[in-house]
């Protein structure tokens, strides 16, 4: 055994709380305290392993450091695939890091270290849920889940394929949870806490499997961490701090029956960390001796508060080696290299040590196949996929796995190409700037950069984009490339999948889970309030220190303080007033209590979604049409339109012979009773009850209208399918293909209109009634004037050639029919031209490339309300891609913006939406004035139009626009 203490691995003397070697063995991460924040550092492994590399100055030692954690980092863990690094700290956050391959080296600006980051690791996800310090994080086998535990007494299981989704919050510990370990088989997760217990949870249903307390009854909460570990064969779980006859031990817990008969004894103080070697070993064959089959064994390293490290083989009764006085302070974390022969240990004293074993000492590591054979022996054939090669031979039992396999094959090559090593990847700065070097750009930056004035006269600089970040790279796509474990579909919380998975589950000998969705939302909603007072204190103290140093009035100190003080007192600064420093303790408490309701909101909305999913699943088939209508009323696009089968129940078979029904729109099915809110105000309701009574064989239905206590009802001879109303009229479509129209007072306006086919959607607005039939024919009537605005107009022009369906339809106050399709396009029917006009397209590149934000003044920054905004979405994503064009000529973007604004104007015009027209006209005018040469005439011409259609009639449109121009 060789022992090395690489002195260059340090956090400037600050404690190192965690260390983890990358699965490929080329680098390792440390986590701990930084200067003023938490610190994660990624180091090169080569200089640790080889002395010549350590001396070679061309080989970097430090690869990257990240100061993003606001407080001490307690744990760093690489994902099993090596693509991600998770870190958890006292700032209650878990951060997930990923390497940004194409950004060049950089330093942490302003930090004392002038060392460049050789590799760039970016935080791609921040997981917020814990209300106290995060003590340990652990990736599940195959990176399906990420678990984190905290002093808030909980363990959170994150869906690693869909961050930041929470699969489950495990509650049950009554003390600070300080360690986590996954069962290598994937069936359990174990946690150890200050509450003198070690709990094993099932991953099938996230319920408690066993609670072990006996070995811990004498333990006091004296250790910073309790990092327990599971043996690679899954047979043993070894705890951190346990007591046996008032001596500190590491308790061995057998998987079989959770027996606690053995322990590792010998440390003089509490055991802080246990880490199993990832390899299983067998006895080294001596030359000449007869090959005698020996039992495979595991190897385990134990670190303690007594500053010593012991390494055990499960085949020996005594430790293989014990190293005393390796550190000045407690051992905090241990990590093995993947080959099982190297070991890194870190300590609170801020140093790390490396142990290098030979195969003679540890034995022959089993290769993956042998290890797998052991797993299969113990757990049976249908065990989780443990190897890539095995995956191909696994019988595909569900479509999810098939999909995964296909994905995996597709992804394999890029993954391999991405192999991470210190030398095979020299990240390059991808310049978007056609062939110009960064130096050239910098020389002329001041002259070249685009500077404009905003509406209120302020300078606005468009920064030059010198490198793009692929923000999308941490979206599910990449997290998807992990195997599916049996039962992992529980993480997606789709109940039906669990049941379809139960075949796998059963063969595993696991109990099929009961419905997790019923328990999860409620449980996660609760939160522990006594969240880490220790953290509060420490933060409080810290800010106190800062305060005292800042409040001195000595001249030199006064200067210093200027660096740290906020600019709140400075003229012209509009920063949010802070309570900093007055009552730091209270402030921190406040902030944590502010945080809490947010968490609750999230979980509650989450549960709502889940309920939604469930109800849809349940209602599928019989009631799905009604669901559609309800959604439409809320103005939400229907996503499942494409997959929905056309419901056939509500209509007689004769409908099927209708010759024109080439295009079919879904019709709502009949419900026993339903009610809708009349859209324009919040107090008018329509209630429908079908089959209230049966009179001489015909079934009567009742339509009831109510507004603030006033109500009327009317009986209809057929069952009602859809009802809609406005402040002026109420329309109902019945099963017998009739359409009845009533006034708001309940008087029948016209005798029943007979429709050729059943109704798909019905809308009322003002005096207008819009009917969209199942054969995709549109009609709009003005029932007051008794005229037809749109006569049986087919949706064929907009629907043909696409596989899109109608996702939303509505009628504006002016009687313009608007139809949105599932492909993101929205059309309205112009009755004077008798044409369909495209008014919104979510894929329109013009929309995405415009940049007119500096023309939006504060008062209309909130946007305009109206049909156009409704179709385009309130958060018009305009300008999202504007930046991407920073390399393209400014005038091109200008042209695009102009074209987009023109489009908006004409769309608002055709929708007869005066307020929106005004809104866009103002922006248009400002844009022209700001960016293009003023073309007052064109604005004024438009001003005339405004005058024509505004309801709040502008007496002299000319003066309006001219004054607008002056305003700018």
């Amino acid at each position, binding site marked *: 055994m060789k022992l090395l203490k690489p002195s260059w691995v340090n956090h400037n003397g600050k404690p190192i709380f965690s260390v983890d070697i990358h699965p490929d063995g080329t680098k390792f991460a440390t986590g701990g305290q930084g*200067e*003023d924040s938490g610190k994660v550092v990624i180091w090169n492994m080569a200089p640790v392993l080889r002395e010549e590399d350590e001396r070679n100055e061309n080989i970097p030692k430090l690869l990257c450091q990240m100061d*993003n*954690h*606001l407080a001490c980092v307690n744990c760093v863990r690489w994902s099993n695939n090596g693509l991600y690094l998770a870190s958890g700290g006292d*700032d209650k956050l878990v951060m997930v890091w990923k390497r940004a391959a194409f*950004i060049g080296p*950089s*330093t942490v*600006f*302003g930090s*004392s270290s002038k060392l460049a980051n050789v590799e760039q690791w*970016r*935080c791609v996800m921040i997981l917020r849920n814990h209300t106290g310090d995060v003590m340990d994080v652990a990736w599940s086998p195959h990176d399906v889940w990420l678990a984190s535990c905290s002093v808030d007494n909980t363990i959170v299981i994150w869906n690693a394929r869909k961050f930041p989704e929470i699969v489950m919050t495990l509650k049950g510990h009554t003390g600070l949870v300080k360690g986590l370990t996954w069962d290598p088989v994937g069936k359990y997760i174990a946690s150890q806490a200050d509450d003198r217990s070690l709990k094993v949870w099932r991953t099938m249903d996230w319920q408690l499997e066993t609670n072990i307390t006996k070995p811990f009854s004498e333990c006091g909460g004296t250790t910073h961490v309790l990092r327990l570990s599971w043996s690679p064969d899954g047979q043993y779980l070894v705890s951190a701090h346990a007591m046996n006859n008032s001596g500190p031990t590491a308790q061995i817990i057998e998987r079989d029956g959770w027996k606690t008969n053995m322990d590792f004894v010998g440390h003089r103080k509490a055991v802080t960390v246990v880490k199993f070697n990832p390899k299983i070993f067998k006895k080294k064959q001596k030359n000449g001796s007869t090959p005698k089959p020996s039992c495979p064994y595991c190897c385990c390293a134990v670190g303690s508060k007594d500053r010593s490290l012991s390494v055990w083989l499960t085949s020996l009764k005594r430790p293989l080696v014990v190293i005393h006085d390796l550190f000045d302070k407690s051992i905090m974390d241990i990590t093995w290299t993947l080959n099982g022969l190297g070991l890194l240990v870190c300590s609170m004293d801020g140093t790390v040590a490396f142990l290098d074993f030979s195969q003679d000492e540890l034995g022959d590591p089993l290769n993956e196949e042998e290890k797998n054979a052991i797993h299969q022996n113990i757990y049976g054939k249908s065990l989780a996929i443990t190897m890539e090669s095995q995956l191909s031979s696994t019988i595909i039992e569900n479509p999810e796995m098939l999909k995964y396999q296909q994905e995996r094959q597709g992804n394999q090559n890029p993954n391999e190409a991405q192999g991470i090593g210190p030398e095979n990847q020299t990240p390059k700065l991808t310049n978007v700037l056609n062939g110009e070097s960064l130096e050239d750009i910098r020389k002329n*930056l*001041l002259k070249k950069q685009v500077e404009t004035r905003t509406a209120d006269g*302020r300078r*606005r*600089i*468009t*920064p030059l*984009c*010198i*490198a*793009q*970040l692929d*923000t999308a790279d941490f979206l599910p796509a990449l997290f998807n490339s992990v195997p599916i474990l049996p039962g992992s579909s529980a993480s997606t919380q789709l109940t039906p999948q669990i049941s379809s998975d139960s075949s796998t589950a059963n063969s595993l000998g696991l109990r099929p889970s009961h419905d997790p969705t019923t328990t999860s939302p409620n449980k996660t909603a609760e939160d522990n309030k006594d969240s880490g007072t220790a953290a509060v204190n420490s*933060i409080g103290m*810290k*800010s106190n220190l*800062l305060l005292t140093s800042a409040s001195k*009035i000595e*001249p*030199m100190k*006064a*200067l210093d303080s*200027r*660096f*740290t003080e*906020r*600019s709140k007192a*400075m*003229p*012209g*600064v*509009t*920063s*949010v007033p*802070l309570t*900093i*420093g007055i009552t730091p303790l209270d402030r921190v408490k406040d*902030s944590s209590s*502010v945080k809490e309701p*947010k968490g609750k909101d999230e979980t509650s909305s989450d549960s709502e979604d889940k309920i939604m999913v469930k109800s849809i699943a349940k209602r599928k088939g019989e009631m799905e049409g009604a669901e559609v209508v309800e959604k439409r009323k809320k103005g939400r696009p229907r996503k499942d339109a494409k997959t929905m089968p056309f419901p056939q129940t509500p209509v007689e078979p004769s409908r099927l012979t209708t010759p024109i029904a080439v295009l079919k729109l879904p019709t709502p099915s009949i419900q026993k009773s339903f009610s809708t809110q009349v859209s324009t105000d919040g107090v008018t309701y329509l209630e429908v009850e079908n089959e209230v009574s049966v009179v001489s064989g015909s079934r009567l239905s009742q339509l009831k209208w109510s507004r603030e206590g006033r109500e009327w009802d009317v009986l209809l001879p057929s069952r009602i399918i859809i009802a809609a109303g406005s402040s002026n009229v109420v329309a109902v479509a019945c099963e017998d293909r009739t359409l009845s129209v009533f006034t708001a007072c309940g008087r029948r306006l016209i005798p029943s209109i007979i429709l050729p086919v059943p109704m798909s959607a019905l809308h009322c607005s003002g005096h207008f009634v819009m009917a969209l039939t199942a054969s995709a024919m549109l009609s709009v009537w003005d029932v007051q004037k008794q005229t037809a605005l749109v006569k049986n107009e087919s949706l064929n022009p907009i629907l043909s050639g696409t596989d899109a369906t109608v996702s939303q339809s509505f009628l504006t106050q002016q009687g313009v029919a608007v139809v949105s399709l599932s492909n993101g396009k929205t059309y309205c029917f112009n009755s004077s031209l008798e044409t369909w006009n495209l008014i919104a397209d979510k894929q329109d590149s013009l929309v995405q490339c415009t940049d007119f*934000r*500096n023309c939006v003044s504060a008062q209309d920054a909130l946007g305009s309300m109206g049909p156009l905004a409704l179709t385009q979405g309130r958060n018009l994503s305009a300008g*999202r*891609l*504007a*930046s991407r064009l920073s390399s393209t000529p400014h005038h091109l973007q200008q042209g695009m913006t102009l074209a987009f604004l023109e489009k908006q104007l004409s769309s608002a015009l055709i929708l007869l939406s005066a307020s929106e027209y005004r809104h866009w006209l103002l922006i248009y005018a400002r844009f022209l004035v700001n960016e293009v040469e003023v073309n007052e005439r064109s604005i004024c011409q438009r001003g005339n139009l405004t005058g024509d259609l505004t309801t709040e009639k502008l007496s002299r449109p000319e003066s309006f626009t001219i004054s607008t121009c002056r305003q700018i």
Partner: protein
Amino acid sequence: MAKVQVLNVAVLDNPSPFRNPFQFEITFECMEDLPEDLEWKIIYVGSAESEEYDQVLDSVLVGPVPAGRHMFVFQADAPNTGLIPESDAVGVTVVLITCTYRGQEFIRIGYYVNNEYTDPELRENPPVKPDYTQLQRNILASNPRVTRFHINWEATMEKMEDSENVDPAPNAMLPPTSMPGKAPPLGLMPDNSMDCL
């Protein structure tokens, strides 16, 4: 965690005559597309004793800011000498670059500025009334002091959860008197050296 990280600030045109505009070339990285602009300010500290003499030299909006690495040059006119106390015109003061998002300051970069006469004669016997035409401004570009603040980056109404004031190296400040010619006191920044004056 901050969505915007300042990667570098290069001080251009330094040292320069006092009346020259300030020029900072700022490189920053943004984790995700920002829906709103960043606001940058240059603040000149006229006198160490009082904020009263602080001058906001200029403020500028920077946007749109998509995810990625960006750079721009922030140029602002020299401070109004009429607002600087005569006793503080010569010597060491501070210039601050701040950046706010949604009205919340998340980073403050401070530089020591040394204003000195270039003429040795004037240096020996400085005029009572400062002669700004003869003053040279020297920004200690090698030693930026960066203070980061935790702000709420989201649009929610939620208040800032943690406005802790963090200074990277609170003890490493150089007493300005010890600057010329002397090695900096070795606090936490052993590899920083004063390479100016």
